[in-house]
């Protein structure tokens, strides 16, 4: 199998071609640096994304507090994580860095507040 990706490791945006089969990555071409190769490999084997959203707050200044995943979560699980995030309510006061959801869907990532409320 063959896939073309635009590398986002830096602003260059190289078009990287990855050849792979079910077992392994066969080749990475078009990248201009090592980071590009690493990015392409992860994109094929286990693409992950940082997730940011907001969580409902009871009794805060603002009705919602922004949150992020403490580390990237599998791209395929973004919407499942959103379901969990949307089902949670937290009581004010919320502190920046506070863990709102621990180890969301066993991804190893916590959902943490990124502002005070």
């Amino acid at each position, binding site marked *: 199998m063959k896939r073309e990706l635009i590398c986002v490791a830096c602003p260059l945006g190289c078009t990287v071609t990855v050849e792979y089969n079910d077992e392994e990555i066969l080749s990475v071409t078009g990248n201009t640096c090592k980071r590009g190769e690493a990015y392409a490999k992860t994109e094929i084997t286990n693409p992950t994304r940082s997730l940011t959203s*907001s*969580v*409902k707050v009871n009794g805060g200044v603002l*009705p*919602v507090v922004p949150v992020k995943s403490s580390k990237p979560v599998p791209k395929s699980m973004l919407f499942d994580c959103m379901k969990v995030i*949307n089902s949670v*309510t937290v009581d004010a006061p919320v502190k920046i860095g506070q863990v709102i959801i621990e180890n969301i869907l066993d991804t190893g990532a916590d959902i943490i507040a990124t502002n005070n409320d």
Partner: protein
Amino acid sequence: MCYDVAIIGAGVIGALTARELSKYNLKTVLLEATNDVAMGASKANSGIVHAGFDAKPGTLKAKLNVKGCEMMQKVCRDLSVPYKKNGSLVVAFSEEEMKTVQELYERGLANGVPDMKVLNKDELKAMEPNLSDDVFGALDAESAGIVCPYELTIAATENAVTNGVEFRRNFKVESIAFEDGVFSVKSAEGEIKTKYIVDAAGAHSDDIAKMIGDDCVELIIRRGEYFILDKAVGNMVSHTIFQCPTKMGKGILVSPTVDGNLLIGPTAEDIDDKHNTATTADGFNTIKTYSVKSCPAVSTRNAITSFTGLRAHPVNDDFILGPSKVNSQFIHASGIESPGLTSAPAIAEYLTDIITSAIGEVKKNDEFNGKREDVFRFRHATDEEKMTAIAKNPAYGRIVCRCETITEGEIIDAINAPAGARDVDGVKRRTRAGMGRCQGGFCGSKVVEILARELGCEINDITKFGNGSNILFDKTK
């Protein structure tokens, strides 16, 4: 309970007529189909106080224009509505057009227009250096002015309500019945009874008249598109600049506005749909082509917004004012196209005379106060006035709209005023919040919050202009 008079349509005619009627001991109700006053032609026109040389001598238009122009300054002062007597120029681009200018001058004399003068090119260019070099001359009419049409309507309604008139919004008239000398006016919101009706429903006044079986009102709906340009170019001209009139109207004008912007437009296009206030690519091009002819430096690159207004052009080319032939208690106020805004104070008097003489013995309202309470405008206040105002009400110390320098206090006032704002556009027209160069990009959401707070509802209940124009959907969480 039965009203003496029900005015259908809270445009500038309805509002000023309501105020005029409130000088008498009459029970008057002002019925408006939408969520606010001035939602038809009164919110989207050129805002020009015409001198009165356009209309044919002897017509209602001619008579009421000149009278209205005389009255406007005082009406605006009483209602604390900005008005400026900036004069108008009808510019000619050929010898041929100079003949038209001369004709207009003579017609103006016949209509009793004061302070007119025919200018040659040099005199004209000295007066307005940014005009095109291709000008030949112009008709200068110094009695002409500019006014903010929706502000006038808002102020007149407020003053009418203060003087006892009842205002009902979202009262869209669906049918009118007449029995025992009394009309029943029905809408989805309910029914009211009244002895007299003034049909000031603008583009819909023909439909209202048909409800009593009167089909004498024949209107052609004419669409006019405009651009508003940034205040940075607001002083490109000081007079209102017309081109020579054509069959379709007064042509594309270039004019300062009372608020310091530059207005260019309108186009003139007959359309079938009374609700069609869309702007068009063709309209944009027409405005660009013709405005540049008057002022080569005008550029829509400075545009901050565009809008469309609908005028109800009467087929017989004159205002339709007076009792219906079908039922003399039904008073027409239809076909009020230009110079309708200028004529409005005179039309209000004219209609009130008709009603009061028909009723016979009507006492004056001794408590009538024609002065609208001064509205605090932070941007116009001196430092001392600002400090006093903020000390009294700290909300005047918080700027919500940065572009136009509008405070939270002014927005709260606009919501709580008689017949006050109920939606974002209503706040905008009353305060100018959101009318500046960012067009509400920053303050829009704050205005929504303030409206929700003052009206005691959720922010997703707030609309742009009533009925289904909600700004937000559900909560995200």
